[in-house]
């Protein structure tokens, strides 16, 4: 998905690090990774550690990090859109990739690189429930892998309950139960309810250029 962008920008001091949220481990990600033939860095994250550290709730989400290791855009939707309109999906993605190109070319002067104050204002909130949810998810995943599915499953369900905004927890849990479970009827019911509650499955990144695809 990101290989072309990487080839284009690799010689400009730029690296892409993709992280697969895969509690089933590397084997589950091997096929897609082989097909994508990435020359950037492609990692496997069984425990969803990166989602924990960066307060992520869905895939694909992204964070922009500058040369000094500072976050210039916190967690946001990485150019994805949920619509059957292919044109709109392509457009959303192009706007997002153009924003990355602009940042790589101009650095802090790019209109897409947040100032520290703006970056802080865009951080997702850390709550005790979310912290507790990550602990439940991590322990549940471990017990599940140990073969203790009764207890593991209970901790995973508790993680989903504690952070209902985490599509990662919900879909990974369903995927552990059944390889095709993440996109079943329960997912669609949940997604419909989410939308009805006025929440976006893929909130658009806060960029003026995204106005073209919003609404």
């Amino acid at each position, binding site marked *: 998905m*990101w290989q072309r962008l990487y080839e284009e920008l690799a010689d400009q*001091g*730029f*690296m*892409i*690090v*993709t*992280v*697969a*949220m*895969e509690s089933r481990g590397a084997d*589950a*990600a091997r096929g*897609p*990774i082989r097909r994508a033939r990435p020359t950037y*860095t*492609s*990692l*496997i994250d069984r*425990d969803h*550690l*990166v*989602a924990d*550290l*960066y*307060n*992520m709730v869905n*895939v*694909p989400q*992204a*964070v*922009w*990090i*500058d*040369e*000094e*290791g*500072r*976050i210039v855009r916190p967690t946001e939707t*990485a150019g994805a859109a949920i619509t059957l309109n292919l044109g709109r999906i392509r457009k959303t993605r192009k706007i997002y990739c153009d924003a990355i190109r602009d940042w790589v070319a101009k*650095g802090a002067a790019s209109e897409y690189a947040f100032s520290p104050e703006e970056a*802080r204002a865009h*951080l997702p*909130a*850390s*709550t*005790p429930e979310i*912290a507790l949810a*990550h*602990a*439940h998810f*991590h*322990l549940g995943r*471990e*017990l599940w892998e140990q073969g203790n599915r009764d*207890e593991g499953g209970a*901790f995973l369900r508790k993680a989903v309950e504690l952070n209902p905004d985490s599509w990662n927890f919900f879909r*990974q849990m369903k*995927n552990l139960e059944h390889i095709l479970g993440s*996109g079943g009827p329960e997912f669609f019911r949940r997604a419909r309810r989410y939308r009805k509650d006025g929440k976006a499955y893929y909130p658009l990144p806060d960029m003026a250029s995204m106005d073209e695809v919003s609404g």
Partner: protein
Amino acid sequence: MTRVLSAGRSLDVEPDASRPAGELWLDAAALEEATGWHLRPEGLCEGPLCVPLPEGPRAALVDGDTVNVSGLWQHLGRPILHDASATTWMLGEAAEDRGSRLASLEAPDFTLPDIEGKLHSLSDFRGKKVFLATWASW
């Protein structure tokens, strides 16, 4: 054997079996390896941060070279969970610690394997702009 998990760590340890069920006591070396915390004369320390231990809490949390990790985590207000047999423990992080770390805007480092099992750290790419993106097969 008991497995102790925390963000980015997993360690098999031999806890002090003489303690009551539901308490996790580790010697100072295992404590450090499992959690990054050190036992020092002034208290319990994680990097430059030390939690001073007045006599009361000290007696409940430290016994010679052995530390009551479950008590320490509760004392710090951090989530701590274990399975029914108390052979797998999860030492979580407090929401305030997660929040203040992100508010520093210093990108939290992590080390993860690629599909060949080779480990890479985010900090390996210091000096470059990094676009960090997640995905999943499911």
